[in-house]
Structure formats: structure tokens, C-alpha cells
């Protein structure tokens, strides 16, 4: 009965109710959408980091994790890589040689990570081949070809087919120099990555270092990211002497970004709710003051004050929920539409790229956010209702009846 009455009361002053409902709707709609965009951008960043070089799972020796020395290679690494690539969850595996060294041009020198790969396998695991902007992916130069990032090429003043000298500590700890020629220049979303990583054929490194075919890192790409945990468990069991890590362990800053984001988004939604709260309170207060006489009559003819109190409460909550639900439905629909189509952010692309963020992003919203939001709306409704409701039950019917609003 009260519910029915409350609903009808809301629509007695359509204009007033519609304004506050529109405010709630717009607030939630845009709030939800921007939260989804922020989380979506994080998600896209993660995916591009996985695609670019991390892959889903990596294996190193424990010593290599501590000291990053090439001499800490994985025993029988290539055989191990073949074994892993036979697992059914695994799409492909790339076994890499990693060396920290210096890249020098006639102009300048820079510290770089030298990544020795098998070009055909690497292509199946990461997307570095797709990022080539000049030249070709290990094609066109026979002797010691090298892929460098655009940023590094800029800093060293190098062009396609320029020569560059890598100096590094060989596996037998002697200092080694080798000249490489730029076969391709790549540009990923992350300028930081481009400035510090070079790719060479690992066979060239073996020749230069005079070493056996050693492997420091095995990067594994899965068919589906849903198999991550199960595959991790299998690998950890099989290779307990090695360090098996997922991208989450490898790039902890991504997790930190996510935690930050969630806190920031919740603060943001809370501020919007607080602003709405005052809007709702004002509206209800006006509405109550308008109806002083009516409440006076209701109480005078015997309606319990508690019921009047709850009437106002229910009116306020209904009003908030009504706007909230429309807002959520619209928000969900917008998110769903853009999650398929993507939002083009190429306007800001320079800034985004510094953070390794891609320029097209797909908004997503974790399901639990809807739950959090619904609770937030109800709480906002209740808080907003308290003051107007108290005003009503404090009315003295004899005076109230004589009030002409």
C-alpha cells in the first residue's frame, strides 16, 4: 500500500521528479561509462603488454632472475621448450637468449637488452613482427641482422641498414663486440620498450659468443588466457627447479595500476553520489514542505507517524532507484555497444604511448561494480531521505492543517 502511494506521489509533480531522475540517470550513465573506459584502457594495456613481449608465462632459472646474467641458462632449454610446446593448452613457445649490453653508434651509446630469438617461432608468440614500421622482419640482410625500436634508432642517430655495435659480456665472461646491421625498425605502443630492447637471431649470438645453443628465457603463449592458472600449475610441477611466472608476476606495476584505478573510480563514484545526495535531499525537502498541509491532514485523520516517515523514505528510495536503474541500463547498453566497436583515442596517442597504452580501447566493467553501484544508490536514497522524513514526523497536525503553501 505504502509502496503504491509513494509511487503515485512521485508522479504528482512530474516536472520536479523528472529533473532529479534525469540528474541521477545522467550521473550514473556517464559515471558508469567513464569507469568502464578507464578499466577498459587498463585491460587493453595488459593485452598489448602480453602480445608485445611478455606472453602469458615465462620460465627462467632462479639465478637468472636474481642476476640477469646470460651464463645462467636453462639446462637443456631448447629441449624443454619443445616439450612445453606439445602441451595442448599451449599455442607456441619461444626460447630466447637474453643479454644486457651496450648498443653503440658512431654518435653515442646506450644500455640495451639484447633479445636473441628464433624469428619464425617468436612470430607465433609475440606480435613484434607486426610493429615493424621500416624494413622487414629479419628479411633482407644476411649477416647479423638486428631489429631496433624507433626511439633507440632516434637516440643513436641510426637509420635502416645502418651499422651498430653491440658490446656485452659473453658467456665465458669476456667482453665481446659484434657489429649488426639494422634490418627493421619497430614502434610499439610503449616508447620505453622501444628505447631499450633490440632483437637479433639467437644463432648469430651463439656464433659471436662461440657458445652452445643456450636459452635464458622460455616464453609461452597459450591458446586461451583462461588456461593460465591450470597451465601454470602443470608447469610448476614439471619444472620445480625453475622459476615459472605469469605476466602478473612479471609486470607487477600493471596490478598496481589496477588497484589504483579501482580506488580512484570508487572515490569518483562516491563523489558523484554525494553530489546527487544533496540534489535528492533538496528535491524531497521541497516536496515535503509543499505538502505540509496534506501530511497534517493525514496525521490528523489517524495515519501513524511511522507510516508517514516510511512513506517519505520509500518515495525517496523509489525516486533514486528509478533514476539509478535507467542510468545503469543506459550505461550497460553504451558499454556493450562500445566494447564491440572500440573508442578511438588517437587524439591523445602521444601521451598514451609513453605509458604503453594502445590508442583504441574497449570499455569493460567488472560485474561486481553493478552490485557496488546498486548498494551505493540505495544508501544514497536512504541518506537523502532522512532529513525530509524527520521534518515530516515532527509536524504538529493542528498547525500543519492551517499551513497554506
Amino acid at each position, binding site marked *: 500500500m505504502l509502496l503504491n502511494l509513494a509511487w503515485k506521489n512521485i508522479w504528482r509533480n512530474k516536472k520536479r521528479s523528472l529533473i532529479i531522475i534525469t540528474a541521477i540517470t545522467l550521473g550514473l550513465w*556517464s559515471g558508469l561509462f567513464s569507469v568502464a573506459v578507464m578499466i577498459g584502457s587498463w585491460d587493453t594495456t595488459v593485452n598489448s603488454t602480453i602480445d608485445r613481449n611478455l606472453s602469458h608465462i615465462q620460465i627462467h632459472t632462479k639465478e637468472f632472475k636474481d642476476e640477469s646474467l646470460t651464463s645462467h641458462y636453462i639446462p637443456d632449454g631448447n629441449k624443454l621448450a619443445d616439450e612445453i610446446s606439445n602441451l595442448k593448452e599451449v599455442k607456441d613457445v619461444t626460447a630466447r637468449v637474453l643479454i644486457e649490453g651496450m648498443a653503440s653508434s658512431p654518435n653515442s651509446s646506450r644500455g640495451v637488452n639484447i633479445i636473441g630469438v628464433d624469428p619464425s617461432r617468436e612470430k607465433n608468440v609475440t606480435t613484434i613482427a607486426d610493429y615493424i614500421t621500416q624494413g622487414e622482419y629479419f628479411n633482407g640482410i644476411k649477416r647479423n641482422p638486428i631489429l631496433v625500436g624507433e626511439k633507440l634508432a632516434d637516440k643513436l642517430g641510426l637509420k635502416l641498414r645502418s651499422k651498430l655495435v653491440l658490446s656485452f659480456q659473453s658467456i665465458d665472461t669476456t667482453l665481446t663486440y659484434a657489429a649488426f646491421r639494422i634490418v627493421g625498425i619497430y614502434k610499439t605502443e610503449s616508447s620505453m620498450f622501444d628505447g631499450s630492447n633490440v632483437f637479433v637471431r639467437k644463432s648469430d649470438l651463439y656464433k659471436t659468443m662461440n657458445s652452445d645453443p643456450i636459452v635464458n628465457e622460455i616464453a609461452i603463449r597459450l591458446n586461451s588466457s583462461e588456461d593460465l592458472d591450470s597451465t601454470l600449475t602443470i608447469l610448476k610441477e614439471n619444472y620445480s627447479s625453475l622459476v615459472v611466472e605469469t605476466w602478473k608476476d612479471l609486470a607487477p606495476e600493471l596490478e598496481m595500476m589496477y588497484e589504483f584505478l579501482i580506488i580512484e573510480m570508487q572515490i569518483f563514484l562516491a563523489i558523484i553520489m554525494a553530489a546527487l545526495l544533496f540534489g535528492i535531499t533538496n528535491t524531497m525537502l521541497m516536496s515535503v514542505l509543499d505538502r505540509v498541509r496534506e501530511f497534517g491532514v493525514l496525521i490528523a485523520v489517524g495515519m501513524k507517524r511511522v507510516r508517514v516517515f516510511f512513506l517519505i523514505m520509500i518515495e525517496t528510495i523509489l525516486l533514486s532507484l528509478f533514476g539509478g536503474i535507467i542510468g545503469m541500463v543506459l550505461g550497460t547498453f553504451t558499454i556493450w555497444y562500445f566494447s564491440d566497436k572500440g573508442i578511438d583515442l588517437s587524439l591523445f596517442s602521444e*601521451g598514451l604511448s*609513453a605509458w604503453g597504452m594502445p590508442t583504441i580501447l574497449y570499455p569493460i566493467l567488472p560485474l561486481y561494480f553493478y552490485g557496488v553501484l546498486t548498494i551505493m544508490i540505495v544508501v544514497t536514497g536512504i541518506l537523502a531521505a532522512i532529513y525530509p522524513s524527520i521534518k515530516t514526523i515532527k509536524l504538529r497536525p493542528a498547525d500543519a492543517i492551517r499551513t497554506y503553501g
Partner: protein
Amino acid sequence: MKTYLQLAWRNLWRNKRRTLIASASIFFAVIFALLMRSMQEGSYDYMVDASVSMYTGYIQVHAKEYWDKRSIDKSMELSLTRIDKIDSVKHVTLVTPRLESFSLISYGNVTKVASIVGIHPELENKMTDLKNKLISGKYLTEKARGVMIAEGLATLLKIEIGDSVVLYGQGYHGVTAAAQVEVEGIVKFTLPALNKTMVYLSLDYSQWLYAAPNRVTTLSIMIDEAKKINEVHAAVSNLFDEKYEVMMWSELMPELVQSIEVDNAGGIIMLGILYVVIGFGIFGTVMMMTAERTREFGILISIGMKKWRLSYVSFLESLFLSFIGVLAGIIVSIPILYYLKQNPIPLTGEMADVMLKFGLDPIIPFRFAANIFVDQFLTVLVIAMISALYPLSYIRKLNPVKAMKK
């Protein structure tokens, strides 16, 4: 004119409750907008300040092209009179010279690439608080012939105080720069990028090692007020001819500027959403207030009050109302924001640990500056004024006969 103002003012206080409700909605709007903006800009200030005093400084002077090439060949003659001149520029607190380069560093059979920096130990300490980061050994002296090495790098190389490391790199004009030096101190940085790469020498010794006597690559300048940067940059630029480059932190760390811009764009969108919500709240209140007075307006018009006069008075009323709300909001926010600026909100738990790991203080900083207040004051006022247009059109369309029957 005075009559209108008086009338509007009195009207406002005829129904105190209504006026208070309406200005309260504006009041809270101002507070929320201010809090949000202050938090955002505060975090940028903090990021800039932290990055600047971590290493780069607000302004750097190099020989032309050094920044692009990072080659010791693009170093410059160190002139004390020049440094004195920079020092005497207003707002400059500190000038410190550096000779920076990359070299290989080896110990035993481990070799790493390190960023080798020749520093003036005392000045460097004043700028980056380096002495406090010392965890063992002793701090470099001006003529020291040893190295001070970052803790992460020391661990990788497995070295301790007293061990001798080999530095191997390229000196001035292609000279091979190699030497065996003793580790005198170990410093710990929170930022992994620094902690795994930094090696410090005394400026004196590094000039000898790199065969670059009396040369430096960088003059790093600190100033006392971040917002005076343009002024100082102009003054310092005047001291140098075109053979030098004078760069601000925004040029030295374009990634930082861009990431702030991206975040700021997001922040402004959110602020926009907040304004929409606020705008509807204010508009709703104004609308209801007008509707309540239909009868009064009807009577006034029918006894001969001109509609434009009535509109004028009610516009003045809305204006007063907005002013009261905005001013009250700002007056209340000033101490709140000032307090938050002095006592940033501390973060706790896991979040705090993660932030510490990345070299950030676990706090939510705020900015307390006039521009925030002015911006929010104007924006909210504009929103309130737009809402104030409603009564104008309402009165214009009012039919006095119908209105009186309400």
C-alpha cells in the same frame, strides 16, 4: 537600481528555509568540485616535485645537442662565473654540475651497464638528498677517487665496501675510459630503474677518467617555487648563447608531462560529469522555487508590476543566491584544503607498501592554490546563472489569471 537590489535581497530572506536549501546545494557543489580538482592537481604537483628532486632538477643546461645524443663529446666547459650568475637569478636555490655517461662496470666475472655520474658531492646531496640514501660505507668527498654505487647494482655484482670494480667506457673524443676503482659507499634508491643502474664518482675523478678536464655534461638547477619556472627559464636562457640548450623539466621528462595530460583529460571528463549532476541539482531547486511563487507572481503582475521588472528582481535573487552558495563553499573549503595540503591523507595497507616499492610516499596529496578556487568559483557561478534564466522565461510566459488561481 538600489530598489531592485533591496527588493531582491529582502525577497531572498522572506523564506529563509528555501534560500538556505538552494544555496546549500550550490555550497556543496563548490566543495565537491574543489576537493576533486585539488586532489587531482595535488597529485600532479607531487609527481613533478618527486621526479624533479629525484634526479633531473627543474631546469638543466647542456651544450647544444647533448640531450639528444647523450654523448660525452657534447659536453661543455665548466665555468664558475657562469654558475655564480645562474645562482644569482631570482628563485634559483641550487646549481649542481654533473658529468654523465654510460659505461660497463665489472666485478669478478659479472659485467653490467651502468649510468656513471660525476657529481659535486655536497651540492648533489642538497639537491637529491643523496647522503640520506647511503646505507653503508661513506659518502663521496670532493676529491674522492672511489665510487658510490646503487644497492641493486651492488647486489647484482656481488660487491661490498672495499672491493674494486672495473669501469669501462668511452671518454671524451673517443678515448677509452677504463679504471679500477674502489667501492666507498652504497646508496639505496626506492626506484628500481635508479637502484639497478646508478654509479657516482666525484666530478673531479670522473673528469680525469673520461679525459674531459674541467668539462661537464649537465648543470642541474633547482628553484624554490615550481610555478616560477618560466620566469627562471627565461632568465637562465639569457645567460647562454645558442651553443647551449636550457631545458625545463617538461622537456626533460616528456613522458611525465604526457602522462599528466592523459590523466588530466580523464579528470576533466569526470569533473564534467560532476558538473552535470550538480547543474541538475541547482536547476531543480531553482525550478521548484519559481513554481512555488506562481501565485505571488500572478498577483504582482495583475496589480500592475511590469514583467520585466519582476524578471529583473528574480534574476537578481538567483544571482545573490548563487553568490551566497559559492562564497560560503569557498570560505569553508579554504581551511579544509589548506589542512589537507599540510596533512595529506595517508594510505595504509597493501596499497602503501606497493607505493613505497615504487619510490612514492603513500599519501593522497592536495593542491592549495588560487587558480583552483578561481576556476571552480567561475564554473559553478556560470552553472548557477544558467539555471537562473529559468525564472525569466517562466515569468515571461506567466498568465496572471491562471497563476492567481493556484
